[in-house]
């Protein structure tokens, strides 16, 4: 009798374990779920777009944010594949994801670098688009930046410094600005810099305009010739090259207009739902949402790669 009860209990346990296992599998199999990986600087606008998309279509939306390179590694190294991945630098697609983890992607939005600060920042009252670099050079001012080996915003900041040196005809300016940030104030990505800025540890950071706005920071725009935001200045941006020493090698980044990339990776569990979200995000309503968050969506996405879903390609022909 006791043995019977034990058996029954065991059976119950196994059954409940099975059903617990089956629940997420079931959710995964349903087409009404979409999992999106978003670069930290896209977190807020993508959240807004996903919320609207969920309201309209009844889709269950899940979002994970992180540094662009880390998100790509989650796919290539940990084999955790989302339905959509949106990155702060389209270059991460060819560098890490195409061809093994993705066969195509879309360039879809622009952003620009700004100088962000708070009302408490040293010199906040007098900083302008014209004198920003002189403010950063003041010894009492604390300037943070992202690790160029870890995040696009890190090497883009260094590119802005190089371009500023040419633009203001101030030899040595880039090296001086770079040296204003000691190792202790270098962070893995832009969102952690924002936290330090808000906590009063930093006075200034060079960051994306969208992040500055999403976090309600004060900011000054930099001249278009150096802010990496204007495709008309692409040739000028390309004159800035940044060498980043990593543990095993050195990588050179060439200045370029900031272009965000988005795609549905290979093996996405709900590829069709992912493509539907992309169609929404890249369409007129999605573009308006992105624009409201200071992300300049391209009027038409530019697809790279040959196996773009037909529905998407025809929608944006």
């Amino acid at each position: 009798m006791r043995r019977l009860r034990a058996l029954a209990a065991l059976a119950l346990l196994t059954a409940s374990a099975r059903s617990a296992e089956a629940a997420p599998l079931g959710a995964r199999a349903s087409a009404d779920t979409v999992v999106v990986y978003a670069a930290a600087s896209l977190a807020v606008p993508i959240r807004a777009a996903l919320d609207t998309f969920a309201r309209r279509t009844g889709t269950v939306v899940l979002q994970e944010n992180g540094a662009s390179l880390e998100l790509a590694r989650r796919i290539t190294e940990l084999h955790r594949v989302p339905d959509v991945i949106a990155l702060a630098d389209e270059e991460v697609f060819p560098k890490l994801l195409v061809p093994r983890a993705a066969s195509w992607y879309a360039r879809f939005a622009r952003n620009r670098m700004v100088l962000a600060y708070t009302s408490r920042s040293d010199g906040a009252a007098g900083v302008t688009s014209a004198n920003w670099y002189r403010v950063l050079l003041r010894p009492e001012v604390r300037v943070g930046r992202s690790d160029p080996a870890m995040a696009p915003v890190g090497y883009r900041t260094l590119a802005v410094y190089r371009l500023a040196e040419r633009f203001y005809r101030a030899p040595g300016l880039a090296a001086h600005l770079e040296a204003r940030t000691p190792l202790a104030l270098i962070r893995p990505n832009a969102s952690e810099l924002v936290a330090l800025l808000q906590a009063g540890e930093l006075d200034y950071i060079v960051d994306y305009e969208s992040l500055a706005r999403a976090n309600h920071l004060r900011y000054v725009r930099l001249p278009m010739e150096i802010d990496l935001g204007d495709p008309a200045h692409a040739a000028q941006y390309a004159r800035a090259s940044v060498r980043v020493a990593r543990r095993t090698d050195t990588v050179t980044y060439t200045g370029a207009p900031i272009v965000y990339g988005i795609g549905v990776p290979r093996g996405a569990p709900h590829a069709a739902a992912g493509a539907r979200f992309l169609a929404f995000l890249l369409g007129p309503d999605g573009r308006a949402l992105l624009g409201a968050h200071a992300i300049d969506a391209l009027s038409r996405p530019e697809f790279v790669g040959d196996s773009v879903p037909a529905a998407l390609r025809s929608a944006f022909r």
Partner: protein
Amino acid sequence: MTTHAPVRVSHRAATAGVVAGSLLLLLLLALPIATLVLRSGLAGLGQLGVDAELRGALWLTAQTATLATLITVVLGTPLAYLLARDKLPAAPIVGALLDLPLLLPHPVAGMALLLAFGRASPAGVALAAFGLAVVGSRTGIVLAMLFVAAPLYVSAAREAIARVDPRYESVARTLGDSSVRAAWRVTRPLAGRGLLAAAVVMWARSVSEFGAIVILTYNPKVASVLSYDRFTGEGLDAALPVAAVLVILALVPLLVLRTLRASAVSGEPAR
């Protein structure tokens, strides 16, 4: 419902259940560690010779975790004593407050520490007067470790002290010891093994801390931050050796301390 199964059988079943349950849990805990060490242990040890950044991160981790543990032992043991002997007014409230840091998600703990001890805060201003800052510094690392791990030490130390019969101290006091001296001479050695175990747990938890540390101090990098950094920048094959070598090296002090504990420190009867 009553059953009359032979006592022997139910004993055997109970024993089997206990053993099976223990093995299952051990397997759950050991499998990821074994996978990590088998996959990347050799690579990690080999890397030790050539990778100065890895050696630096491990050394920094060992130093800061040890310092955080020592500070907690010095400040936390008296607190644990007061809690164990009900000598604090509102001891249950203090005890509950001590559990709160354990509830906080670690990045949130890092942010809270930043707001409380950053240079814009009164405490941060006071620290700066001593040339200390919590951002980008060893101070920040030690503070983060202390915040997330000290509650573990205090609660385990409290249990260890509570297990020592207070009458021994009373006897010492009747022989002329002051209460502090009695606690030091009688209770401390009797609770010694438990205190050591508590310190070991605190040290290990400090070594593994990531979330709070990375908010305060990304550079200089402790081993956990370096491992994350390598994962993001270079991928899994660069990240795992860092973690594997950390596990292998941390095993040495853990084993030494556990052995010390087992060899009956201070004459407490072995249990």
